């Protein structure tokens, strides 16, 4: 049979084991008691036999001896040649022959529902034979006691057992209560409602640890889900803006007949906005394209310095427009195994940011060198990032200005692409920034 509830399982095991233990205890205790009683009877009978022996030695006739008060209460039989030649009282000795042949002088036999002891006192001279005797009622008290113990054990133990099971059941309930709470909370939790936590128990035990672990897990899930929700909301925002422009331009253009210039202008706007949408989607796909397990296959030997120089060249127009100068303070020739596309993403996004957030006619300083590790350091004299925002800049779609100020172009995906690329190369990235003074970004391969 299978028990579904943990409580039933524990109770069945506990009850079973306790019952067996009780039984073993009872049997042992009863045997021990029985032995003890036998010994007591044997002692008593032995003392009598000593008395009888002493009396016989004084030469008293056996018939007179039997009238002695001390022996009066005895059931006695005198045996000669295996036959009872004298009998006193109700003495009824089963298996007489066996007793006599045996060398033992003390036997226990069952008489009715009682245990009784029989002493055999063998006489060799001048009378060859034996005196068998036991004392009537000698055992009565002891037998009663035995029965009492037996009875009380068989009555009290089931009661004790029931009590133990009841107590165990209460204890299990107490232990299981927080677990039931956990189950209840777990059932109530869904992706849309991760704000719940389980109430801490007052104790400081394994249950508390479980509740702690569970709450921490909910918390982690909560954060993850929030990030995903934020990401979804950001993606939809970023995609909806160009879509709004496309939809609106088409509607307004179609509102009435226009000059051909107007149609051309509208189509150009739509083209630009469609390109934006494509960029966002490409970047999003790039974020999920490579994983730690498939990136290794794309690794090749790359010359970091020449890749950096090529990247800087791509920004010549923007640099000229803003009058920004890039100083290559250190540029060592370094080869590295990596994914060219991703490393190029790191360089171009960091340079792009440095240019975008710099005021006109400022300098950007770049260092690329190898000491214990490979360092790429880019320092700008731009607007800087506030302390509390430093940790968030690499989140997808995060832009320091919540409104996504369109005066500085971008989707806020650049740095999360950088972060992703850095992680895929087992490299690290560090930001140091002072508001209004500039930002230093270090990538360490």
């Amino acid at each position, binding site marked *: 049979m299978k028990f579904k509830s943990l409580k039933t399982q524990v109770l069945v095991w506990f009850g079973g084991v306790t019952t067996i233990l009780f039984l073993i205890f009872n049997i042992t205790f009863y045997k021990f008691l029985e032995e003890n009683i036998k010994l007591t009877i044997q002692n008593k009978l032995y003392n009598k036999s000593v008395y009888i022996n002493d009396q016989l030695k004084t030469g008293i006739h056996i018939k007179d001896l039997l009238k002695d008060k001390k022996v009066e209460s005895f059931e006695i039989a005198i045996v000669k040649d295996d036959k009872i030649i004298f009998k006193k009282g109700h003495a009824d000795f089963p298996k007489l022959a066996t007793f006599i042949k045996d060398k033992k002088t003390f036997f226990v036999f069952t008489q009715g529902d009682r245990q009784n002891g029989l002493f055999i006192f063998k006489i060799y001279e001048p009378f060859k034979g034996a005196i068998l005797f036991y004392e009537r009622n000698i055992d009565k008290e002891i037998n009663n006691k035995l029965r009492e113990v037996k009875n009380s054990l068989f009555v009290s133990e089931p009661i004790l057992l029931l009590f133990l099971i009841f107590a165990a059941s209460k204890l299990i309930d107490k232990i299981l209560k927080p677990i039931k709470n956990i189950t209840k909370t777990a059932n109530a939790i869904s992706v849309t409602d991760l704000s719940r936590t389980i109430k801490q128990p007052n104790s400081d035990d394994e249950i508390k640890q479980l509740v702690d672990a569970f709450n921490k897990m909910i918390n982690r899930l909560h954060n993850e889900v929030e990030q995903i929700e934020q990401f979804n909301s950001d993606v939809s*925002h970023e995609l909806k803006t160009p879509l*709004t422009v496309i939809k609106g331009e088409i509607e*307004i253009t179609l509102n009435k007949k226009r000059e051909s210039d107007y149609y051309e202008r509208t189509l150009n706007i739509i083209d630009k906005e469609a390109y934006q949408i494509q960029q966002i989607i490409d970047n999003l796909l790039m974020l999920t394209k490579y994983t730690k397990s498939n990136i290794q296959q794309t690794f090749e030997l790359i010359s970091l310095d020449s890749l950096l120089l090529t990247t800087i060249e791509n920004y010549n127009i923007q640099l000229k427009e803003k009058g920004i100068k890039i100083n290559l303070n250190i540029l060592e020739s370094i080869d590295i195994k990596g994914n060219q596309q991703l490393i190029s993403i790191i360089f171009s996004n960091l340079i792009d940011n440095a240019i975008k957030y710099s005021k006109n006619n400022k300098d950007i300083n770049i260092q690329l060198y190898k000491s214990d590790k490979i360092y790429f350091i880019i320092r700008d004299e731009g607007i800087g990032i506030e302390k509390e925002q430093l940790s968030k800049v690499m989140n997808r779609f995060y832009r320091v*200005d*919540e*409104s*996504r100020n369109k005066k500085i172009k971008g989707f806020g995906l650049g740095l999360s692409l950088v972060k992703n690329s850095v992680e895929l190369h087992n490299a690290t990235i560090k930001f140091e920034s002072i508001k209004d003074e500039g930002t230093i970004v270090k990538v360490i391969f």
Partner: protein
Amino acid sequence: MKILIVEDDENILSLLKRGFQEEEYIIDSADDGEDAEYLATSNSYDVIILDWMLPKKSGIEILTSIRQKNIKTPVIMLTARTEIDDKIKGLDYGADDYMAKPFSFKELNARVKALYRRSLSLVSNKIDIKDIIINIDAKSVTKDNIELELSQKEYELLLFLAKNKNKLVSNSMIEEQLWNNEEYINSNVIQVTIYNLRKKLGKEFIKSSRGLGYKIEV
């Protein structure tokens, strides 16, 4: 009708301005929260189109601020947010309507008109004054069932006076209502417009009290 458009995306702002200009609305625009708040509190508009996420001050902050100053201009919120909670939040803070991006310009325009009508406490889209009927949706004016040819400014001025009938409307009020922030106004231009309107509607239709302003008496 004079509207304020607040939108930080230059492409969306540009298309909204063009679209509403073709509807012959008078338009002011702002692309950040602070400018928007300044314009909304210092000028009077018939409708404000307000984006949710803006640099410097959010749409909700602007909304809260103008409602606190007891400005009851109808506000239609424009946003990429589509969560029900966001809609409720916007309406709770005193927005009159809500449009999610990407929206249809025609629908936005229809809602702007509806809000405008509601703000005039009009059930229909017509205003009757004496023998003159102004059709707000069609932007047409008839006198004795004959349609009159009015310029945009003439129409707007007539509508403004009609909305404030029996009240004196000053030159500066007219100037603020009929021209946007960036337009240069010749001091004569209001006088000329009034003159032209009187010619078309009848001399006694618009009363003037010298130096103070104009009114339509019913």
